[in-house]
């Protein structure tokens, strides 16, 4: 037995060494970004690398904020993200309710049809959509960026449907007996049961709108309407070699997703496991 205990310790030690070195590798890019964002231009080009900058230059963040209207871009992005989250939660859950709880002809076919649209690359629909929005004079507005949230996104509809399926049908029956209509059942009885799914969709929706680059790139022209992603890109163009400022700006952009990740890791994992997609 002594030998097997020794073997066990040996195995665990090796595992820890692998896991820790892997973890360090995964964290280096983030650490490097933050470290760079706190250096002077001269410190950046120092060799060997100064991991902890001395002195720490907090002013880079102030400079990044004032170099271009970052607050405005953040405001624009938050506006788009929140109006979209409301749409995504309401629409996806309503459609999912229909797929999960109501019986009508064609339902299963339409469900399969919806899932199969996941295979369609967005570039196929992108150009006609652009021409469509253009013909309505909606280029350089937020409508093309927000409207899709109000028609439901298949993968999130699927996610919410899977949660609905786990709620026993006795709830619907009891509600019916008490004289509750379909919409009241959906809103008052079922939605509270699937709160984790709604939170997961809200998080995924926020992340995708916060990071969306191609949409704003195609649809927005005026700089005052830019989102954070476009602002960062603009910033990159203006300060090509000012890596400390570019990294400060990137750090700012990555703070909200990181905070949300730490607050809601549980919901993330649940959502990812059910949909099989990485967010």
């Amino acid at each position, binding site marked *: 037995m002594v030998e097997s205990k020794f073997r066990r310790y040996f195995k*665990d030690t090796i595992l820890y060494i692998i*896991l820790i070195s892997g*973890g360090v590798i*995964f964290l*280096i*890019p*983030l650490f*490097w*970004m933050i470290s760079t964002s706190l250096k002077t231009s001269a410190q950046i080009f120092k060799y060997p*690398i100064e991991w902890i900058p001395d002195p720490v230059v907090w002013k880079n963040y102030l400079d990044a904020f004032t170099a271009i209207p970052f607050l405005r871009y953040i405001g624009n992005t938050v506006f788009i993200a929140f109006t979209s989250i409301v749409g995504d939660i309401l629409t996806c859950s309503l459609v999912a*309710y*229909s797929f999960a709880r*109501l*019986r009508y*002809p064609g*339902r299963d076919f*339409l469900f399969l*049809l*919806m899932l199969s649209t996941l*295979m*369609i690359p967005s*570039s*196929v*629909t*992108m*150009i*006609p959509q*652009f*021409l*469509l929005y*253009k013909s309505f004079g909606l280029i350089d507005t937020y409508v093309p960026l927000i409207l*899709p949230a*109000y*028609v439901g996104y*298949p993968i999130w*509809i699927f996610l919410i449907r899977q949660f609905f399926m786990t709620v026993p049908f006795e709830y619907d029956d009891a509600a019916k007996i008490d004289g509750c209509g*379909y*919409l009241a059942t959906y809103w008052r009885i079922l939605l509270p049961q699937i709160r984790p799914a709604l939170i997961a969709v809200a998080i995924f929706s926020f*992340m995708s709108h*916060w*990071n*969306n*680059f191609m949409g704003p*790139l*195609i649809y927005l022209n005026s700089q005052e309407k830019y989102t954070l*992603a476009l602002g960062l890109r603009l910033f990159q163009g203006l300060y090509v070699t000012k890596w400390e400022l*570019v*990294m400060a*700006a*990137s750090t700012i*952009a990555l703070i909200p997703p*990181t905070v949300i990740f*730490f607050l809601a890791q549980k919901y*993330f*994992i649940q959502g*990812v496991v059910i949909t*099989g*997609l*990485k*967010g």
Partner: protein
Amino acid sequence: MMKVSKARRREITVGYLCLSPWLVGFIVLTAGPIIASLIISFLDYDMVHPAVFVGLQNYKKMFFEDPLFWKSIKATGYYTLLVVPLNLVGALIIAILMNQNLRFMNLFRTIYYLPSVLSGVAVALLWSWVFNKDFGVLNYLLDKLFGIYGPNWLGTEEWVIPALAIMSLWGVGGGMVIFLAGLQGIPTQLYEAARIDGATSWQEFWRITIPLLTPTIFYHLITSIIGTWQVFTQAYVMTQGGPNYASLFYVLYVYFNAFVWFKMGYACALAWILFIVILFCTILVFRSSSYWVYYESERR
């Protein structure tokens, strides 16, 4: 004629009403545009002059007269061949490590998972700095740890795609979470039974773990192939398709044609070919699945 009760009719009406946002969206923003896209692909259209019907000209040009089309196929195909297997094996290995019963596992899981939820322009900027030839951290560590003089990652034709593949491995945590869930779904009795029969851990891995994970692997394969063919942001921000079009990812090329050069017809033709490529890859994986994907409920 069958009599449909009033209550039943009401359920059907409500069902379609609740479905209507998606149904309308599907018709206006998906089905309509797909057909429109096919039609536009037969046109020469720049949004200024009236569209001209050119038949199969766009497709002919693509295959026979456009070296950039082949460059973009090569770049994206190479990236797919690198990233899909690397991501699969990486995610699987990390998931197996994470599945061990050790302390601090939650902390490790958080660390490995975090990068995969970060994306977009900020991450692309961060990695352009990591890959910087003279002052980037990657070449610094290569030099310090292994004495290797690192290449100009994003500036040379042969290194730009491997560089972007390395960057994509940073997001391996997403796949890890999926595989971890798959591993935890394998009944422990199977391992106990195998141990009683005297199986080694190596045999357990190949005879139990892998077969029972094949449905997850299958799904992961399909979604990552679809994903790698749609790379855009990294390429746009980090390389603009360069150097010498070596990282001209397919969707980037579609974007350039449509929104920089305003060749709408040609861009639609490109998009349709992408659609067919993805469809083909998916069907290929699906077709092969009966040989290697194991479903428990299935008798063989």
